[in-house]
C-alpha cells in the first residue's frame, strides 16, 4: 500500500508542475474551470454541442457566452447566470437556453459515492455494459 501511495503522490506532483501549454483564448481562458473533471476548460465554446470545443475543431476560438443579470456577458461560469435580456435570448431556443443553464451546473445533480453510484470510469459512449464506469451485466452495474 505504501508503495502505491508513493507512486501516486509522485505522479500527482509531476502533474502539478508540468507545463499546461499556451493559454486557450483571450483573457477569459485565464479563468480555468473544470467542473466535469476531464482536464479541459469548461469555458471553451462548443457551439454545435458535439463535445469538441470549437477551437479544437477548426472553428472560432472563444468562450461560451455566459450572460449576467441584464444580459451583459460575464467572464465565466462561476458568475451568476441570470438571463433576462430579451435581445440576447431572442436567437436561442428553449433547448439552447436550458443547455446553457445546464452547463453552468454540470457539477451538481450527480455524486460519486452512494450505494448505486459509480466512479465515472470507463467508455462514455452509452454502451449498456461498461458505461458509466461500472461493470454491468443485464442492466445491473457494480
Amino acid at each position: 500500500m505504501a508503495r502505491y501511495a508513493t507512486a501516486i503522490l509522485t505522479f500527482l506532483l509531476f502533474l502539478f508542475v508540468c507545463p499546461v501549454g499556451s493559454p486557450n483564448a483571450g483573457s477569459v481562458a485565464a479563468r480555468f474551470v473544470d467542473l466535469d473533471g476531464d482536464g479541459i476548460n469548461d469555458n471553451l465554446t462548443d457551439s454545435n454541442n458535439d463535445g469538441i470545443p470549437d477551437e479544437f475543431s477548426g472553428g472560432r476560438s472563444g468562450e461560451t457566452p455566459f450572460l449576467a443579470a441584464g444580459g451583459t456577458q460575464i467572464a465565466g461560469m462561476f458568475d451568476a447566470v441570470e438571463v433576462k435580456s430579451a435581445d440576447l435570448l431572442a436567437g436561442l431556443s428553449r433547448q439552447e437556453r436550458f443547455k446553457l443553464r445546464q452547463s453552468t451546473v454540470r457539477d451538481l445533480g450527480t455524486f460519486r459515492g452512494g450505494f448505486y453510484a459509480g466512479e465515472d470510469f470507463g467508455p462514455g459512449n452509452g454502451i449498456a455494459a461498461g458505461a458509466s464506469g461500472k461493470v454491468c451485466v443485464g442492466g445491473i452495474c457494480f
Partner: protein
Amino acid sequence: MRCIAILLSVALLVCSSGKATGAELEFGLDQAHTSNLLKNAGEAAAWYTNPRAALRLYPVPTMEISLTGQYTFYYGLDSGLTELEDLSNFRGGVAVSFIPRQSDDGVSVVMEGRLDHQEYRDAFDEYSNSDGALTVTAGTAPADNLRLRAGGSVRRTAYGNSDDLDRSEYDVFGGLNWTLPGRNVIDGEFGVSLTRATFMTGLFVHRITGDTLSDPSVVQASFLTPTEADDSEALSLLYMSKRFSRPLGDRTGISATVTWRKLPQSGSKTVQGINSDVVSPWSSVWEGYSFSVNIKTFMIPRIILTWGAGYWHREYLPAWEIRAEQRGSVMVDFWTFVERVDNQRRTYVSVERPCSVAGSILRLSVSVDYTSNSSNHILYDYEDVTAAAGVSLTF
C-alpha cells in the same frame, strides 16, 4: 418492444414540428462482444445489442423532460448457457430536470426526479424492478476559483416479484471544486448513504438424517441455514473522493481520482446471493478504495480519444449462497457462507467521432475495455475483454 414503438412514435410526432418546439430526439445502437458475461471464472462469452431512444422536451427554458427506452439483447452463448439470454432486459423511464432561475446571491439549484422500470425475461424475472429517485443539489461560488456544493437524494427500488430485495436509499453529500494556480483543479467530495433493506439474520440448523447402517450412501449431516429478518434494517455507507484534473498541453486533459468507501457498523449483516446471482442488487455494495486515471485528448482532428486505467479493492458484504453438493447418493442444496474480497484492474480506450450534419449530431464510437480480477474466492479470478461499437444520432 411495444414501449419502444410507442416512445418512437411520440418522439417522431413531436420532433416533426422542429427544434422551435423545444424538443431533442436521440437514437442509438450499440453492438458489443464480451468474453466473460458473468464476470467469473466460467468465462461465458456473449454478444449483445443495445438499441435505445430518448426524447427530451423543453417546455420552459428551466426544465427538461426526458423519456428514455432501451433494450439490451444478449445472444450467442454456448449451448447449456442459453438460459443466460434471459438477462436480456428492457429499461424505460421518465426524468424531469429543473434548474430554477438563480437567485441574486449566486446560489444555483438543480432538482431531478425520475422513474424507471426494468423488465427481465422469465429466468431472471425475479429481478424486474421499478425505481424512483429525487435529487436536489445546490451550489455557490464564494470565490472566483472556488465552488461549493451540497445535496441530498432519496431513492426507492421495488422488485415486483421478490419483496425481500426491495430497498430504500437516502444520500447526503457535499463537495468543492477548487481551481489552483497553473490550471490545477481539485474536486473533493464526501457523502453518507443509508439504505433500508431486508438482511439475513439468525441461523437454524438444518439436519439431513438417514439410516446409515441400512443405506451407507446416506450421510448424516447438519447445515446452517440463515433466516430472513422480519423488519427492515439500515446499512450506512461513508465515502470520500478526491479528484485532481488539469490540462496536458493545448488539447489534452488528465484526471486522477481516489475514492474510499466504508460500511461502518455493517456488523453481522449478511445478504443473500451476492455472488451466485450476478444481477443481485447487493453486487454494488462494498467497502474499500480505488484509484483511477483518465486522459482525454483532441490531438487527432475531429476525434475524441479517451483512455483510462484503474485499480479497485473491494470487500463485499458477507453473503449466503445456495450451492449444490453431492452427499453420498444424494444431491443436496445447502447454504454456504462467503466472504469475498476482490482486487480489480481495468483499462479501456475509447474513440469517438462526432459529425455535425444539418444541425444534427451523428456520433460513431469504438471502445475496448479489459478487466483483470483476482479474489480470495477462486470463482472470481477472471479476465474479461469487452469490445463495442456504437452509433447515435441526435436531432
